[in-house]
């Protein structure tokens, strides 16, 4: 049995561990266009600000491939698939047969067709190479514009600030982190970044990149304003990297469509991670969920199923833990409900920059924001996963000490005593 | 010095018993030889004998053996006896001069029958006699009833048993049961009444040991009107048998199960019926359990029972030859008078040796 994996991040690693949890013999062949031992994408901002050195970037120990007997082809790009022949073709023309194939090609940065985007000094912020390149050109006092106040944009911003760079953030939405925060929380986060000298242009965007002899010199905004800068980081977002699936029978919407076994519409081809469009249990629909935990679980599930066992991953939902300058922040699911039937409980202490919000629908927790008071937030995540009826303890949800003591005895004891998978039914 | 009865005196001892199951009578020489052999188990401060079948001519009368300190005691006591009994015959108990025997009391015997008028309504002759014996021992200073059974008598005093035997000329008596006792008291009251055997009616007990349960036994017996004038184990054991066998009329085996009860661990292993019975006995007669070391020979006109405490903390050997049953503290004391017994055995703790007089045994003394 030959398992061929394309990709080398959380989803692919999850797949390896999934396969090996069932099949110790099958041959695993991995292809990655990046030359690195599997590393952690979310760590690139830590790498940039120096908190994490090279040796700590790796997602698994150095002997990981060896221990799992994985034939890893690093820095070798896969050019095409031939599902009907059950082979893949590498960039160098070589073809490799597979019995089971996993597409874990992740996402690629969205780069709008900006005039001047080819100028020297324009960077994206997704891969290790991106930050390595950026890092080499940085110098204290340098001015940088970051397009996009999303997770990536702001992590990049924080890292740059820590490197002594003056950063200006341009964001189309009316607030930072619009995908995971409501206005109130966004304001607090923005405040704290302002205190660290970050400038913001909200409800605005870059119309053109200005250059001087091939190098970035500044940007002109939609409203005509000009901001001089030496570096530009484009962090508008990522898009599923579905290139290989294009032109095949594999069904693709925004991402590659997978079922709860992570199987694509083509036999023996599976997909996992940011490239997919999996089921969102909160929105109850297929969605792209570009977050690491989801990628790993999908990969792990794919691996098990590729190895012949039937295992379902009922899906996940958006969840993020992130922090900017000592301001920790955890959010999940629907944080800014639109439409009928939602109940939002909030508690704010702007002075201390604390904010908590729990969103419920039909007495079930469907989302929350925990800003600067993140301890035990996972209990809420668990309630979302387990779809627990929260009506018996609604009034306690926002308590500082909210915990199992406030949950119904039966549920509490079942969870605590059985000692098995808390919530997670992988 | 306090005498027996005013103080409790622990003592070690030698015992011996001989019985002819067919009731053939024989002289006291054997029992004297037997007990004499165990000379060293005593210390010359007490010896005595019980003999059954020695008064065939007065078999229907209660044979009272009494000791008097002086003539005054004798006359007052005799007045009382004459008042409540028909006295068929009375006289001094024959004795010999024996060097070692000093300050002996006056020893008299009376063959009597209660005068019906003095019996309580529900009282039978035995009970009347018991009451009288207790009364005399308690109320007549200087007088002491040594024995009161029918066709039997006790002979005891201060000295080695063989000396006592010779003093009372026991070689001239013939009986079908003889028991003997040589005593080693731990102090010297020098009072003849305190010597063993102890008797009541035709019960007699010779006993070796000291019973730790004495206090419990005593207070239980007292509830039934027994006055333990002597504070001796022997006395308590005698009354215990009297209570169980004569008054509560329980079978001999039951009495034995009460006095030398089997351990609960044994009882748990018994078959249900026996278990229930034994449980009941222990539950009911716990206060009569004889705890601590003892070996005893119970004599009665119907036979003897030799018994050890349940841990067998005192010696007891038995042997038989023909119609004759021997029991003694030491095997040598048996072989001394019966060199080749047919069987010799050492009864286990709590396992009785029982000799029952065969009914209508020829020459049975009445």
């Amino acid at each position: 049995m030959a398992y061929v994996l394309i990709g080398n991040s959380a989803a692919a690693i999850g797949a390896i561990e999934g396969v090996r949890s069932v099949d110790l013999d099958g041959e695993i062949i991995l292809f990655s266009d990046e030359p690195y031992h599997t590393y952690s994408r979310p760590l690139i901002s830590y790498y940039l600000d120096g908190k994490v050195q090279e040796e700590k970037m790796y997602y698994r120990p150095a002997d990981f491939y060896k221990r799992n007997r994985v034939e890893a082809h690093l820095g070798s790009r896969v050019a095409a698939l031939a599902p009907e022949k059950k082979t893949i073709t590498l960039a160098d023309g070589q073809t490799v047969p597979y019995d089971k194939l996993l597409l874990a090609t992740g996402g690629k940065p969205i780069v709008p067709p900006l005039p001047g985007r080819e100028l020297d000094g324009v960077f994206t912020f997704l891969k290790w190479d991106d930050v390595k390149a950026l890092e080499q050109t940085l110098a204290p006092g340098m001015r940088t514009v970051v397009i996009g106040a999303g997770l990536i944009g702001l992590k990049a911003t924080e890292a740059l600030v820590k490197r002594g760079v003056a950063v200006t953030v341009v964001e189309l939405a009316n607030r930072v982190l619009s995908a995971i925060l409501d206005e109130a929380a966004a304001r607090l986060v923005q405040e704290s970044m302002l205190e660290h000298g970050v400038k913001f242009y909200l409800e605005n965007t870059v119309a053109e990149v200005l250059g001087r002899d091939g190098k970035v010199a500044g940007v002109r905004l939609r409203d005509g304003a000009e901001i001089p800068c030496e570096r530009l980081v484009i962090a508008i977002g990522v898009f599923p990297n579905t290139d290989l699936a294009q032109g095949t029978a594999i069904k693709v919407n925004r991402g590659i469509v997978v079922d709860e076994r992570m199987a694509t519409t083509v036999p023996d081809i599976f997909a996992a991670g940011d490239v997919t469009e999996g089921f969102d249990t909160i929105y109850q629909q297929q969605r792209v969920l570009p977050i690491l935990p989801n990628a790993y679980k999908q990969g792990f599930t794919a691996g098990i199923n590729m190895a012949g066992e039937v295992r379902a991953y009922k899906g996940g939902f958006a969840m993020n833990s992130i922090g900017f300058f000592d301001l920790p922040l955890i959010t999940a699911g629907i944080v800014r409900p639109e439409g009928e039937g939602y109940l939002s409980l909030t508690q704010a202490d702007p002075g201390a920059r604390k904010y908590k919000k729990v969103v419920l629908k039909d007495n079930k927790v469907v989302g929350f924001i925990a800003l600067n008071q993140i301890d035990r937030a996972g209990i809420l995540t668990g309630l979302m996963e387990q779809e627990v009826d929260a009506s018996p303890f609604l009034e306690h949800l926002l308590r500082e000490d909210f915990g199992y003591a406030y949950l119904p005895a039966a549920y509490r004891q079942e969870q605590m005593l059985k000692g098995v998978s808390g919530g997670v039914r992988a | 010095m306090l005498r027996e009865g005013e103080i409790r005196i622990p003592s070690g001892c030698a015992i011996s018993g001989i019985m002819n199951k067919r009731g053939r009578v024989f002289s006291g020489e054997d029992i004297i030889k037997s007990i004499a052999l165990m000379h060293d188990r005593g210390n010359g401060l007490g010896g005595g004998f019980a003999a059954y079948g020695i008064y065939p001519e007065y078999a229907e009368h209660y044979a009272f053996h009494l000791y008097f300190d002086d003539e005054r005691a004798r006359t007052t006591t005799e007045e009382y006896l004459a008042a409540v009994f028909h006295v068929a015959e009375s006289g001094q108990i024959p004795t010999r001069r024996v060097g070692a025997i000093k300050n002996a009391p006056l020893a008299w015997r009376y063959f009597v029958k209660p005068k019906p008028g003095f019996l309580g309504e529900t009282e039978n002759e035995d009970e009347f006699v018991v009451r009288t014996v207790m009364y005399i021992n308690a109320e007549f200073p200087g007088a002491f009833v040594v024995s009161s059974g029918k066709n039997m008598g006790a002979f005891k005093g201060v000295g080695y048993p063989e000396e006592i035997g010779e003093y009372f000329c026991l070689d001239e008596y013939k009986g079908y049961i003889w028991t003997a006792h040589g005593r080693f008291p731990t102090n010297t009251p020098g009072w003849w009444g305190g010597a063993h055997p102890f008797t009541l009616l035709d019960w007699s007990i010779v006993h070796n040991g000291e019973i730790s349960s004495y206090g419990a036994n005593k207070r239980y017996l007292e509830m039934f009107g027994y006055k333990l004038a002597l504070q001796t184990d022997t006395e308590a054991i005698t009354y215990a048998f009297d209570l169980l066998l004569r008054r509560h009329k329980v079978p001999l085996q039951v009495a034995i199960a009460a006095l030398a009860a089997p351990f609960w661990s044994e009882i748990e292993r018994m078959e249900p019926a026996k278990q229930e019975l034994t449980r009941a006995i222990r539950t009911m007669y716990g206060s009569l359990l004889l705890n601590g070391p003892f070996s005893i020979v119970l004599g009665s006109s119907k036979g003897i029972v030799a018994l050890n405490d349940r841990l067998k903390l005192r010696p007891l050997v038995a042997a038989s030859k023909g119609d004759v049953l021997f029991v003694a503290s030491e095997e040598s004391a048996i072989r001394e008078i019966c060199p080749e017994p047919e069987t010799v055995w050492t009864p286990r703790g709590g396992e009785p040796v029982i000799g029952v007089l065969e009914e209508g045994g020829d020459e049975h003394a009445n």
Partner: protein
Amino acid sequence: MKRVYAREEVCAGCKLCEVHCAVAHSAYPQDIVKAFLRQKVKPIARVLVEENRPISFALQCRHCDEAPCTKACITGAMQKDPLTGVVTNEETRCVGCWTCILSCPFGAIKRDETGRKVAAKCDLCSSAGTLPVCVQHCPNDALVFAEEPGWRR
């Protein structure tokens, strides 16, 4: 695997488990007074006593079979030992992103900011090789270390 189970019906809520856990994981594991008085920042306990009177019980990492924290960890520092089943956080690799806190349904992972920010959690005192200290020091046997939730001692 053996886990620590709480018997809330006999938990006295004294929090001695927290005290001793903190000590065991401090710079002075053998000296409770020093652990608390010598260290600038109080050592933090990996076990947490939840209280909602009269209910109280100690809660620590359940060492889930399908441990969500290990799946969520962005650095790979959080791992479940395939042999012992113990979930541990390799603190030198941890960057304190708190994704484990986000994903632990028991809220059993704490932020240890006494030094470098890292996630702190119950390690079943694996190093000690004996009973977990919380179990050892529970004065009322309200914590049991067992394969299955055992009731009687």
